């Protein structure tokens, strides 16, 4: 059932006779399960959508991950299922309460109530990582990625979801995405970017490598 484009630990499984991405781990929000496997819904997860759309995330499985914008933990639960030590940063208290429940049964998932715009407030906890996954919905998303480049070695991956509307509700999404790419270039080389419209309106998925 394994798929060469998917990381180790992520497989396609049939749920209700439909092939879907899945990871092995305790269920989080009542998603369909198949034995130890549980479905990873790409319409609830930007990273899931990137994988579903066949983007080359470079994830092999087992990486050390810094996840920025963990929200209530839906996506980061799947990341922790297939990766190594996973640091989950979330700024808002209410979703972080749910994130705690997601993290409790996952010994490799470390939830942190921190502001992703201020990496110095968690650099004393987070080790250098192989991959940064980012899905924050505030202004200055590209800038957040640049500030967190300090956690990546040269060549380390950034998997970034950009929400056009967070930047400028009136601007053309394409212009916003161009500007994001421009900002990212301070610390990253963009390898691939693709609109996630099929699963997430006005979102762009970006794969970049640390310069």
């Amino acid at each position: 059932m394994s798929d060469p484009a998917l990381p180790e630990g992520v497989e396609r499984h049939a749920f209700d006779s439909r092939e879907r991405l899945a990871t092995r781990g305790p269920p989080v929000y009542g998603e369909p399960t198949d034995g130890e496997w549980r479905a990873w819904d790409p319409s609830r997860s930007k990273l899931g959508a990137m994988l579903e759309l066949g983007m080359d995330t470079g994830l092999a499985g087992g990486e050390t991950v810094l996840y920025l914008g963990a929200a209530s933990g839906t996506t980061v639960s799947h990341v922790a299922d297939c990766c190594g030590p996973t640091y989950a940063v979330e700024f808002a208290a209410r979703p972080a309460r749910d994130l705690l429940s997601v993290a409790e049964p996952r010994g490799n998932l470390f939830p942190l109530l921190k502001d992703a715009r201020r990496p110095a407030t968690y650099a004393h906890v987070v080790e250098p990582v192989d991959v940064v996954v980012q899905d924050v919905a505030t202004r200055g998303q590209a800038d957040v990625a640049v500030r967190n480049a300090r956690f990546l070695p040269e060549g380390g991956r950034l998997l970034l979801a950009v929400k056009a509307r967070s930047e400028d509700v009136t601007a053309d999404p394409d212009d916003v995405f161009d500007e994001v790419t421009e900002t990212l270039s301070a610390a990253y080389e963009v390898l691939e970017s693709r609109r996630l419209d099929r699963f997430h309106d006005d979102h762009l998925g970006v794969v970049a490598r640390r310069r």
Partner: protein
Amino acid sequence: MDEDVPSGRGWFEGLERGDEAGLAASVRDGSAEMPADWPALAVERGFADTEAAYYDTLHETALAATRAAVREAERAGDRQLVHAVRAMDDCSRTANELAERVEEWAGSLLDESGTGVEFAREVAESGEVPATLRTLAQRVVDLDEQAARLRTDIERTAPDVAPNLAAMAGPVLAARLVSLAGGLESLAKKPSGTLQVLGAEEALFAHLRGRAPSPKHGVIYTHDAVRNTHPDDRGSASRALAGKLTIAARVDHYSGERKPELDEELRERIAAIRARKRGAEEDG
């Protein structure tokens, strides 16, 4: 920057693995400019025997630190609630004060007069008063509507911040109690007798100076359990209500879990007070 020389101290440094509170505080409050290979350093410096042990401790500590930070941030939600209820009271008060001015002024000009915000609403649309008085009356209407808007917000927010207290007291009274206590934490830490007279500080101080009887209730007077109980039994009802509200506030502060059985207990207790025979028991 050399990764081996961290520009800040790791969250575990200078602390023992058993010092859970210290470690959690360090995760929450510490900082470093750059990350470092903290797992290796922790082993190297004897904090943990193995990296696996380090990660176990980090997992427990991150959960504890984040749980505490979440709870504190949600108490910040109680601070927003306090701002909202105080602003609501400010808007109602100023609306009424300005309504009195409108009343006096319009009363000197119109044959038919009235009182309060409702009269201001008429004056705001009257063709028989100067334009400036009309706009003054409109300010009263605006403030009244702002108070209503704040009330709506409180009704939406209070159940998030203090689910049990809001369910038992109603969102506005819950917010008022949180406001009078200065926050949910401080409300949760007050004895029930203090909650009972919150908002009756004047009467309480008069009592403490020996000039008045002890007040039976403060703002909780507006609760149905007190107001709709026979005056002879209101002391008992206030005490019972204050007791249950105190429990609700504590559950809200310490766990945040909704416990509908608390409401039921209050209902039963008040029903018992109302049902018992007059004079059959001694009562305040």
